[in-house]
């Protein structure tokens, strides 16, 4: 068990294996590989549309063998209606951008044009399951992508396995998917970071920026995402700050846009920090109302998804200095500029195509399609002709891909994508009509530091939770 983590403390050297080791805060940060602002500093101006050097991605190696020119059908399911459409629309746009680019080069392996069937995730789990079956059995899709809700991937994952349809989920990031719903995936992959990273990143950012906080207030949507954020934030904080105290909790229903009573309750508890995982239109309403109560003057604030919506959905009135989460995945200004040209190119192309900036859903959907393209090319290189699904899957397992958000690694054992997690601090900039991450204070953490490693014994509520509890040292 101890072999899975990298801490070696005096206590452990003495053989006291059952004690939770203690380290200093600086040791902790160093060993976690947490970086603050290192790559993003001063790069924002490079990112205005038109300044980055956009390149067409180089076509892959010349395809081997005989490739049919029959279109490659993908089914992309995301929210087109309902409150979550604010995340669904960017997801669809990211997908379409990638499809258009690939098709401009003749399609996959230069022959197979990508054709997209779209489906509304808001139709409900029952209808979504039926729709996936219809797409595969009746429309013969070759690949299934999208899905935002963490209630839907556990429903659709097993169905995709049954249908033997190659699936790349862009989101729906619940730990539950690969821990319980599809414990031994073959056809199903997920590209974005796992949900538990959200709460942990917020805890790391908050305790790094404000080491003295002890009293915490919570506002979370009352469903599994909110609870996941609550649990992982708390367990991480317990290790990072020792004596934290939860002074207030509020659990508004998902879809609530009236938070006045939650805000008053939070203020009256006089916390040092508010941790909040409200997202989408709910979050927009929450921050606007909280401003009017001077909440931001009275406490620090950390969020998991403040910048989760498309950037332009937030206003110039958004408060500065708060931890503005991006689902631990991606913000369009990071990695910035020429430090990571892939992102600059992506942002520019996305902006030119859709006249707006991408969010993490857009990047996730865009990357998913490219993460299909690459294994197809690799497999073709090995065996020639159009590769079987199993060949593509073999190439996907263990794939390391350079995405706009950095390196993404697909772990072969659970098919989950891992990349360095990211969060940042909100600031208003004269360059954008909406708030962005303060480029000097972007926080990244190698994902291995905040998620349970392969083979770690499963636990409740998640394996990562148990892993943190058992193996993280406590900051003294």
């Amino acid at each position, binding site marked *: 068990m101890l072999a899975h983590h990298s801490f070696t403390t005096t206590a452990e050297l003495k053989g006291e294996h059952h004690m939770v080791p203690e380290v200093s805060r600086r040791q902790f940060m160093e060993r976690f590989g947490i970086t603050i602002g290192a790559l993003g500093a001063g790069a924002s101006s490079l990112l205005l549309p038109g300044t980055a050097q956009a390149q067409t991605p180089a076509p892959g190696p010349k395809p081997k063998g005989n490739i049919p020119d029959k279109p490659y059908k993908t089914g992309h399911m995301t*929210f*087109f*209606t*309902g*409150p979550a*459409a*604010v995340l*669904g*629309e960017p997801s669809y746009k990211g997908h379409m951008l990638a499809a258009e680019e690939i098709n401009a080069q003749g399609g996959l392996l230069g022959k197979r044009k990508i054709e997209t069937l779209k489906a509304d995730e808001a139709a409900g789990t029952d209808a979504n399951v039926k729709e996936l079956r219809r797409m595969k059995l009746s429309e013969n899709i070759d690949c299934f992508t999208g899905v935002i809700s963490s209630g839907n991937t556990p429903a659709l994952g097993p169905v995709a396995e049954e249908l033997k349809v190659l699936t790349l989920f862009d989101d729906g990031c619940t730990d539950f998917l690969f821990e319980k719903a599809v414990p031994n995936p073959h056809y199903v992959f997920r590209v974005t970071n796992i949900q538990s990273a959200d709460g942990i990143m917020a805890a790391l950012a908050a305790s790094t920026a404000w080491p003295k906080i002890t009293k915490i207030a919570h506002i979370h949507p*009352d469903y599994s995402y909110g609870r996941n954020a609550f649990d992982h934030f708390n367990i991480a904080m317990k290790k990072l700050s020792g004596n934290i105290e939860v002074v*207030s*909790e*509020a*659990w*508004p*229903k998902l*879809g*609530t*846009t*009236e938070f*006045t*009573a*939650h805000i*008053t*309750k939070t*203020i*009256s508890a006089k916390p040092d920090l508010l941790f909040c995982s409200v997202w*989408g*239109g709910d979050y*927009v*309403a929450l921050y*606007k*109302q909280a401003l*009017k*109560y*001077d909440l931001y003057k009275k406490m620090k604030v950390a969020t998991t998804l403040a910048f989760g*919506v*498309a950037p332009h*959905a937030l*206003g110039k*009135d958004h408060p500065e200095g708060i931890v503005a989460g991006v689902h631990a995945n991606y913000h369009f200004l990071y990695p910035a500029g020429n430090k990571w040209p892939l992102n600059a190119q992506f942002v520019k192309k996305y902006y030119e195509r859709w006249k707006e900036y991408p969010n993490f859903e857009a990047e996730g959907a865009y990357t998913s399609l490219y993460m299909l393209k690459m294994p197809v090319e690799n497999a073709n290189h090995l065996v020639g002709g159009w590769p079987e699904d199993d060949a593509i899957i073999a190439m996907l397992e263990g794939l390391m891909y350079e995405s706009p958000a950095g390196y993404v690694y697909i772990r072969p054992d659970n098919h989950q994508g891992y990349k360095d997690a990211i969060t940042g601090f909100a600031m208003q900039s004269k360059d954008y009509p909406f708030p962005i991450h303060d480029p000097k204070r972007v926080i990244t953490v190698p994902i291995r530091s905040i998620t349970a490693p392969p083979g770690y014994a499963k636990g409740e509520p998640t394996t990562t939770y148990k892993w943190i509890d058992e193996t993280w040292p406590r900051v003294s």
Partner: protein
Amino acid sequence: MDTLLSQILNSLFYASILFLIACGLSLVYGVMRIVNMAHGNLYAFGAYVAAWTVGLVAGRLPDVNPVVLFVLLLAGALAAGAAGAVLEPTLLRPLYKRAEEYQLLMTFGLLLVLEDVMRLLWGPHPLTASVVSDALPSVSLLGLTYPGYNLFVIVIGGVAALALWAFVYRTRFGVMLRATSQDMRMASALGINVKRVYVQAFTIGCLMAGLGGAVVMPISGAVLGMGVDALVLAFVVVVIGGLGSLEGALVGALIVGFVRTLGIMYFAEVELAVLYLIAAIVLFVRPAGLFARA
């Protein structure tokens, strides 16, 4: 102390929005015996139209007097009222001779249609127009910071309640309305133009819903799905207060407003369930609601 005052104001604020939604639902039921399931979406429609109108004007004329923006909120109410004036004669009137199930189903169909029409017109992103709420600065009293706009909404809720009461109990039209609600045939025999009373009642009901949407929009935004949520809340209010009763809508809104705040303050874990539980308890004890008239 400041927390208490603040929470009382919050409860009143929430109650006044609830009242604006629920009174229309109750009025329409009282007069026409129709439970309008599309009511929540007319509330959402009011919010969208108000946000769109304010956004349009504030975008073109950045220095416009804030009073103008407040007046523009009325566009939401008027648009929802106009929608009601069109929908009643065209889609509901042909159904009065039929079993009441059909009226319910018609409005359920409208709920689905309106949901997508709003997405079609305004897209998936929330529309906000916080210029309106920003125009009223937060007020400081007794060491408490309270949003001025919320106070404005409380006043609007109170004024709406008074105006509606005066309208129903103090005007000639109100007399016709009440006569029709008590006995439609008798009213008709007495020479009241029931057709006209129906379309007017429905229009006023929708207008109130639209007004609710318009005044809540500057702080909550106009979001897809807000209508369905509002409908369920309005149901809870009228179930508690008694379907068809304006007093019931008012008392129900106050009860829900205060109980919800209490729930958030002291029983955060059950916030989601607490409203349904109150509704269920009222239904067990007094199934037709506190101000029942059925």
